[in-house]
């Protein structure tokens, strides 16, 4: 019986790891498209996502937004908090902002894209004119998920 439980536990662990790995692969791919660096410093207040990033060989999850290359913002409250903390460091380069909610794209013109769920489907959306301002060109595979403006 003990062995059976061990097998079930291992299987569950394996499935969980698979899910985590696919999320991580997706973020690694998207973020490396936006930031052409060997190692990308990422900050997110989303604890779950932060934990996922810890398994990456390419993404360095940060506990503070200040030195991040890109910030993954889960909601409007988080955006406001981060914006307040970044206001003080005008001399530093501002990190890119990427959302996990479509409404962040609507609400904040400096959010360049978002990965979110809509009608049970994962949705990736980039706003081309916002990317253009930052000098980012999307590769072909992501171009179909981009709109000129909202």
């Amino acid at each position, binding site marked *: 019986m003990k062995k059976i439980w061990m097998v079930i536990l291992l299987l569950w662990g394996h499935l969980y790891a698979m899910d985590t790995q696919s999320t991580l692969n997706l973020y690694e791919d998207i973020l490396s498209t936006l930031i052409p660096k060997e190692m990308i410093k990422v900050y997110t207040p989303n604890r779950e996502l932060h934990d996922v990033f810890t398994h990456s060989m390419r993404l360095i999850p940060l506990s503070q937004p200040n030195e991040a290359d890109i910030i993954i913002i889960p909601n409007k409250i988080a955006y406001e908090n981060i914006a307040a903390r970044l206001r003080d460091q005008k001399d530093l380069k501002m990190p890119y902002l990427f959302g996990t909610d479509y409404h962040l794209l609507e609400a904040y013109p400096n959010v360049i894209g978002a990965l979110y769920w809509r*009608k*049970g*489907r994962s*949705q990736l959306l980039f706003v081309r004119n916002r990317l253009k301002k930052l000098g980012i060109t999307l590769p072909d595979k992501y171009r179909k998920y981009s709109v000129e403006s909202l």
Partner: protein
Amino acid sequence: MTSRNNTKYFFAIMALMIGFALYLQYSITKSTESLHALEVSKAVQYANRISTYIKAETEGDLESYLRTHTQKREALNKILHTFLTDEFKYIYLLKKDKEGHYRFLLDGSLSDEEEFNAIFFPKSEQFDDVYRNGNAQIVQQEGKDGAKEVWLSLLYPVANKQGSTEALLVIDLSQNYASYLKHLNSPVSQTVTLMQIFLFASLILIIYLTYSYYKFRKNIMQDALTCTGTKAWLNEFLRTHPLDRYNVVLIDIDEFKRLNQRFGEENGNKILKTYIETLRQQIPPHSKVVRTVGTEFMVLIPKSEDLETVLKSLFETLRAKEFKIENESVQLTASMSAMYVPEGARSEDKILRLLDEKMLEIKSRGKNDYAIIGEKRLDDLRFSDMEFIKKALDDERVTCLFQPIFKTQTKEIAKFEALVRFIDDEDPSKLISPFHFLPVIKGTSQYIKMSKLVLQNVFAALQKYPDIEISVNLDLTDLYHRDMMTVIENVLCEHKAFAKRLTFEIVEDMEIKDFEKAANIFNMLRAHGSKIALDDFGSGYANYTYLIKLEWDIIKIDGTLIKELTANPKRAEMVVQSINELGIFYNCSVVAEFVSDEETYNKVKALCIEYSQGFYLGEPKPIEAYLDPES
């Protein structure tokens, strides 16, 4: 049931079980699919009604109308709300923009309701297909990368008056509902699963039993020590491979018990193993080795090989082979009997019996030798089979042929010699010579049974023809056998009149040692009026001592001496003449046997031998052939 058949049955059962399990799986899948199809058709009906309603409530271009009529849009969204159930998770209307992106026109979702014109990536090329072709489609969402909570999507085209697709009505069926449907079917599904588990367990059990069977079979069919076949293996092998394709050699290692005692059983086993390995190397390809018992092995050698050469080489090699054990070198000898298997032979039993007899002969000569039994016909084997003999005696298929004994000078029949024959059950016209069966039944109860039947035959002939005399053969074992003599005595008492016309010919195949006992028996037979003849005088044990020590009524000169009358006339005539004179001296009648041609007959006649017997004068025939030739 052969092993090959067993394998077929096992695989057939396994295939049936797997087939049944697959059929159950197919049935349950089909049943689930038809349930799903029912739900999808319901969704199509809803989509049709919703589409008709939207078109009825809007005017002109759908997008323009909904963009400008906010209140109407809200009202339609609420109506779409009302269609939402556990089954239909999302209902929304999409429009393709100039860039090819889908945007929401209406959304009746309860949660995460999307605003008008919000962008949507359906992640399916089938959306474009439906848009282009105008045919409704079902899209599988469950299990798709980047989709969750949605099981199926019904894509229903909303066409404008010109018939081209203006928008797509999407009804997403929830994954929970798919699970519900699955559960709806679950009692059947569970039963099927249980049956599949049972079938799987049975399959495992069958595989295990099959494995155990073959393992057990191997133990029975193969000798564990020498890896040779066993008798059981041989029986099975001979079911599919006719024995007559092989010649057979029986090998018995001499004095192996002593070797075991000297070096211990473990070392003995090692030597035996090496011995058989050497034997295997020496025998021709496709030969088979069977351990019959202990240190006795049977080797089947294909008929394409020369038996004598193989046997000789085998004998020499095994005799010369040195076995190293405990720093000592040991050589083994073996006794080998071999046989050319006759055409048509299928069973090894009779062959083995003959080989055993030959083996005993070799062993009685001092072992460490080999011999081949001369070629035999299949009938030879059949007629010497104890089962055949027993059946013939039980069926009383015993008869006598009678060879006449002639008065030499006149060629008149003086008497007959009764010669036993068996009647073949397969061909009653075929009479079987005692050469086949006598050696097998000598000394057994079957022999006495046969003798009774012979005497019955003889007395029947004596009764039928009151003027004839008949002689029957007896050997010493018969004389010394209490039961046999009781039978003879009873018969003689019963048929007193016939006893006087009966002669007992004492054959020469055993030496008489107790002359007093023999004389007593002769006297007993004579007391009934019967005569005693010394058969085959001049050969074997029938020698002059018998003439001195016992009283005889008739002396029958052995055929080998009579044959010499033509081959070595001068010397043979002297011998035959002297025997004839001795006979006359002892007041005995003399019979010349084996008178096989006219020349011999003339010689016998010239020597004045009283009686003659032989093929020239008369062959063994049914007595009627001589006494009732017309019948």
